[in-house]
């Protein structure tokens, strides 16, 4: 079963909850934690895992064969990213940082002067928990993606990480997918094959505002959703209650803003809390 942990707003506690939940479920089942916040992945820090590169992620970066090039400039015309530069009477070239790998220039070149080169846009890693979580070693594995800094093709790296996880770790009972903040293509790509999405929010006007946005997305994606209220004892729970009733999305757990949780967070350590235990148990019980 694939469960996405998402939320729209940054800092609501997606990684805190993902890592805590992964550790808890790993007491009973095999869990693959997939961190697809590829711009700023955090789970490997929280769980103090090892770091082993699985593979690089490539995007198409067309290469020019000047012998065949007619200097017609059509490649530059079709490029929507302004990545192909054509100065009259000179050979065109591609600005690699701007190229999004769509291949339009390749398709349009009348003389076959463009070849299928590639560039590394990110990498996929795996990591096992180190002390003090040794006992979960075989039951919990982290896989994460990291984008090359400066690269704008985040969703391609998210996709590649997600696909790698699906292709290579099908023997795991549960996938927990820790998405990035936001509601755009990275987050969409992260949740494409999820069975359930847990939207993490906080009981504040900002939390409510962003929760409504993420629930809208989950609705469009036709992904069943449930709400987790983090930092539940600050602010006004009714704000989220309203959203839950309005959108008919249940609130399945509340996690309070306790001192020991903040302490763990400040030390970059995973959280342990009875509410996470309960949540884990109910999620496992839900599995069909």
């Amino acid at each position, binding site marked *: 079963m694939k469960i996405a942990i998402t939320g729209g707003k940054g*800092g609501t506690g997606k990684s805190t909850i993902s890592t805590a939940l992964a550790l808890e479920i790993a007491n009973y089942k095999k869990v693959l934690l997939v961190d697809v916040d590829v711009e700023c992945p955090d789970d490997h820090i929280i769980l103090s895992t090892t770091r082993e590169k699985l593979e690089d992620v490539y995007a198409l970066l067309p290469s020019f064969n000047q012998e065949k090039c007619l200097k017609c400039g059509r490649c530059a015309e079709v490029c929507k990213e302004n990545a192909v530069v054509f100065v009259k009477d000179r050979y065109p070239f591609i600005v690699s940082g701007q190229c999004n790998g769509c291949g339009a220039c390749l398709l349009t070149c009348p003389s076959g002067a463009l070849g299928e080169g590639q560039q590394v846009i990110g990498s996929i890693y795996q990591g096992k928990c180190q002390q003090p979580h040794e006992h979960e070693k075989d039951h919990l594995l982290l896989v994460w993606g990291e984008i090359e800094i400066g690269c704008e093709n985040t969703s391609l790296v998210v996709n590649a990480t997600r696909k790698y996880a699906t292709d290579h770790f099908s023997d795991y009972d549960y996938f927990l997918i820790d998405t990035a*903040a*936001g509601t755009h293509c990275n987050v969409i790509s992260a949740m494409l094959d999820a069975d359930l999405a847990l939207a993490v929010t906080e009981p504040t006007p900002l939390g409510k505002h962003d929760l409504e946005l993420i629930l809208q997305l989950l609705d469009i994606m036709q992904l069943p959703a449930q709400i987790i209220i983090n930092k539940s004892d600050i602010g006004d729970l009714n704000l989220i209650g309203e959203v839950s009733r309005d959108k008919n999305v249940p609130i399945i757990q509340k996690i309070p803003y306790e001192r020991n949780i903040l302490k763990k967070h400040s030390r970059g350590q995973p959280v342990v809390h009875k509410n996470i235990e309960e949540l884990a148990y109910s999620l496992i019980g839900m599995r069909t």
Partner: protein
Amino acid sequence: MKTITILSGKGGAGKSTLTASLSVMLALDNKIVAVDCDADAPNLALVLGLEEKNFDTWESLTTGEKIQFSPEKCKTLKFCPKCQGLKKCVDVCNYSAITWNDEKDLPEINELLCVGCGACQLACPTGAFELKKVENAKIGVGKTQYGFPIVSGQLKIGESGSGKVVNALRVKASEIAENIQADYMILDAAAGIGCPVIASVRGSDYIILVTEPTPVAFGDLKRAIKLIDHFNIPCGAVINRCGINRDFANHLQDYFQENQIPLLGMIPYDIRFVKALINLKPAVVYEPNFKMIFEDIMNNCLLDMQETP
């Protein structure tokens, strides 16, 4: 006019909190325009107490294109000598946005994944694909009660192109800045270091990095610093919630010193910052005792901006 971008990498580090209070302090003696460069889940206007419905204008934005498919033009398999069921569209899409529906014997476009590159349009021999402009966002201009305008955007859920939306927001803000002869434009960047953040960083005069003293925020910060190095923009740092881990705060200060990043200020951990957010007021307005903290940050920032070429 100078542009200052506030960035962190990590979500929830305090960008909007800092942007709001810094803007209020700056606006006391300067003309400014604030821009919320998080078009996915914009919060800055709310932090400044301005709700969507109270903005002056909202207009729709069409920065994106999506592919549209005409099934009647698709001549697959046995009937079309050109395509011959080669499913070129499926092959050329590098965003996995096109899959083949075996039942209907037609390609299916996943609109959520289509980025509007037009590769399929070029590949299709029967012209069954056409790029059409789509309204993918809306952009709003509002007046805060603190004497300065704010420009904010909202990406239509499910649409792509948040980077392009940020560009459009900046263009709009530049027009306003020109009209009011603004001294500063303050950009509140989104979380992460991807395309909308890059759009907030490009062409900026100064970056304020906001972080908190935790290993996770530090990891993200280092990635953000590499990004701004790529663009060669001067920066300074602010440590938020500095009391939650004093040892780590010291470690951060050492790091900044070693890397010649000036520390513009430190914001203490205080529940009143949370209360300010809940009450939709900038921290310096909710608790005037906080003014000094942000005034210091502002002065250090302006000083540093003058010192660097």
